[in-house]
């Protein structure tokens, strides 16, 4: 599956000329004004910009998590070939006067449609770890939810495998592991014995570094012969086959047993995953409540939740901004590590260019709801083209002494943005045409595009 992803060259998300406006009592805020962006498979795309430039709105729009007063005026977001925001856009075109209540109805439908994609194919990490977790639910439950609604088949097969495996099996497995490691023979054995569900459980134990081999062996030997009530077994087998949850409300007692079995399994899987991310005592942590954990730990939990289903795309919306510097470094380390372990695509939103320079492959610079420059990291940092990017680079503090220059002027009022280039009022190189017409993205180098008349178009 992972190999396929690499070779598939079509972008995961394609955003075409997206205009998103917020209708408020104080006027219409034009948050996104024609965003064109592709997120390619396997890359880390950094998105940078001042606060209020629409980078978070962009991230949320991809997930479809937008408030009811957000109107999709124009443009598409195509996720995995599907244009989810179509009803909203069509409503805006149809409606004479935009009404948030109508928009909300359609948003509800979009939510329903997208709930199959969210958490499974694309997931998101929010900025504030302190408020992203539900204070009333255990951490384990909140991670489990993502598994429970998208991958019940995996959970059922894990549970069933533990019931099917005999003592003989686990003994043989330990023997194979000792002789050849987790290779082809190990997988073949599991397949022949119809206990594939044990695979990730055994691997997660086998790879743990802090345990003694004897302890690991004992843990693997313990993975057998765990009986299930015969009532629940049939349903679990059905879930394993179809990967769909039965209607629990129609099964009054059995439903509860099955649900509990699956949730318990999800807790186990969550603990395993947390262990992989290097969180100490994962078996205890899953039963804790968010307030018992520190900010950094909470952000790790949030990242775990986003990653647990191996999504194709993870949107990280300023994951480090609310944390102090040491924790920030740890989280960045974690993201880098995940990038290596799990082959997926990341969209990393941050206002901090130094953070982006550490993790991203490509960087997009946003200004006033538009992408003004996008290109490979080296190109953006070594030869920034757009005047705004150039000025941003000068504003980054470095260890060597250099004069920090602030960008003069202010972000335009988004209720009434300039007609031409958004940066025109603050730009030292402004030309007459900049005032008249909004520039398109012009190619300035290998995979490097800039929206500025200095680099193309009719120069006047």
């Amino acid at each position: 599956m992972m190999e396929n992803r690499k070779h598939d060259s079509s972008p995961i998300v394609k955003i075409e000329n997206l205009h998103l406006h917020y209708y408020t009592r104080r006027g219409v805020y034009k948050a996104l004004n024609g965003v064109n962006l592709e997120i390619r498979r396997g890359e880390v795309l950094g998105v940078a910009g001042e606060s209020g430039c629409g980078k978070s709105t962009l991230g949320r729009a991809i997930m479809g998590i937008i408030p009811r007063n957000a109107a999709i005026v124009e443009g598409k977001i195509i996720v995995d070939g599907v244009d989810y925001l179509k009803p909203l856009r069509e409503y805006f075109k149809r409606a004479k006067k935009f009404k948030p209540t109508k928009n909300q109805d359609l948003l509800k439908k979009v939510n329903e449609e997208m709930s199959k994609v969210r958490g499974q194919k694309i997931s998101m990490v929010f900025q504030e770890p302190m408020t992203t977790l539900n204070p009333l639910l255990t951490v384990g439950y909140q991670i489990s939810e993502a598994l429970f609604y998208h991958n019940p088949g995996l959970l059922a097969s894990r549970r069933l495998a533990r019931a099917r495996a005999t003592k003989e099996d686990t003994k043989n497995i330990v023997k194979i592991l000792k002789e050849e490691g987790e290779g082809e023979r190990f997988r073949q054995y599991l397949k022949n014995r119809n206990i594939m569900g044990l695979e990730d459980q055994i691997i997660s134990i086998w790879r743990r570094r802090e345990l003694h081999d004897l302890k690991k062996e004992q843990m693997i030997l313990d993975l057998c012969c765990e009986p299930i009530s015969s009532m629940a077994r049939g349903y679990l087998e059905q879930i394993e086959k179809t990967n769909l949850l039965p209607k629990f409300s129609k099964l009054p007692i059995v439903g509860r047993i099955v649900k509990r079995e699956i949730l318990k399994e999800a807790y186990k899987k969550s603990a395993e995953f947390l262990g992989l991310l290097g969180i100490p005592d994962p078996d205890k942590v899953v039963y804790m409540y968010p307030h018992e954990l520190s900010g950094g730990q909470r952000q790790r939990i949030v990242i775990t939740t986003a990653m647990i289903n191996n999504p194709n795309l993870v949107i990280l919306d300023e994951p480090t901004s609310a944390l102090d510097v040491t924790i920030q470094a740890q989280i960045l380390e974690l993201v880098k590590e995940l990038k290596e372990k799990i082959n997926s695509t990341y969209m990393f939103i941050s206002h901090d260019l130094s953070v982006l320079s550490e993790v991203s492959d490509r960087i997009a610079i946003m200004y006033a709801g538009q992408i003004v420059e996008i290109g490979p990291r080296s190109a953006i940092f070594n030869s920034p083209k757009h005047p705004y990017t150039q000025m941003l680079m000068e504003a980054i503090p470095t260890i060597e002494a250099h004069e920090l220059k602030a960008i003069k002027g202010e972000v335009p009022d988004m209720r009434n943005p300039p007609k031409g280039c958004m940066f025109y009022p603050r730009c030292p190189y402004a030309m007459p045409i900049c005032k008249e017409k909004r520039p398109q993205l012009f190619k300035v180098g290998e995979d490097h595009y800039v929206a500025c008349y200095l680099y193309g178009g009719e120069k006047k």
Partner: protein
Amino acid sequence: MLLFIPTLIGLTVIVFTLLHIGGTTKLLAMYLSPRLTGAARAHVIAELDAKFHLNQPVYVQYFYWLIQILEGNWGITNTPLYSGPVTQAIEIFFPNTLILTIFAAIIIWLVSIPLGVHTAVNRDKPSDNTIRVASLTFYAMPWYLIGVVLIIIFAVYFRVLPIAGTVNPSLVSGLPWYHNGISYPTHILLIDALLHGDFGVAWNAFLHLIMPSVTLSLGVMAALIRLMRGTMLETMDQDFVNFARAKGVPEKVVINLHAKNNALLPVVTNFGYLVAGLLGGVVVIEDVFSYPGIGMWLTSAMLNNDMGGIMGGTLLFGLILVTTSLFLDILYAKIDPRIRY
């Protein structure tokens, strides 16, 4: 939780002070025959002074009074409805009020929480506006007006519900567990009837409960609906709700598990005090429906200037409010993992 005891002391001090504003003469008048004169009268007064410690300083009297209260001697009430010890009056009248309040509380909870969630989820839509206007209308109406309107509609016009009282007297006359309008053993007719297996009486008692409890709940429901709507709207904007959506959790679960449970926290507190406050509301309702509860007894105590009854009632309501708040603190700690005492 530690505030429980100081609150109780404060409560008793207030009740005691109120009792003393009424003056000792009032007390003496209850025990002193008006026909006594001269030395005999003075002698009896001195005796009573000694008996009730009236010749001691006020703060000493307070402790004597407190001991009496703890011993269960809450004074004497003398009203047309009942005369005798206050504790006994409470024993007779309070169970009726309690069942009425419990019924009303159940109705309030079952109706206003779902309505509050519904209005928040369907914000600004016609159903939201209708529910808000309707509930505010009831909130603005005085209790007795709602009661009378309901009586006119359901008892006079449609004749489906009984007008007043706790039970149809013809059904209970001659029953071994029912004397003088009091049922045994719990004094709550509905429960006693069920205990004795008399379902006809139980059904009749239930019908008698409907209108008073609906009246009681209609009047305060708006407060809870609005509160629930407000907190729900607030929680639905929270990050963790969006995060639940981002996990791909179905919208129904997002609202009912993630948003609702968090929005309920402040509502539970308010609900507790609301229900405790309902006990004050019953004073009016019971009068409208001639329902023999604590409210009716207290009304007649007030009309008859019966100090014992009024003070007993004040102390009782105070105690209920204080215990409710204690109970709520415990409940709050149960549902919110962040609070542990």
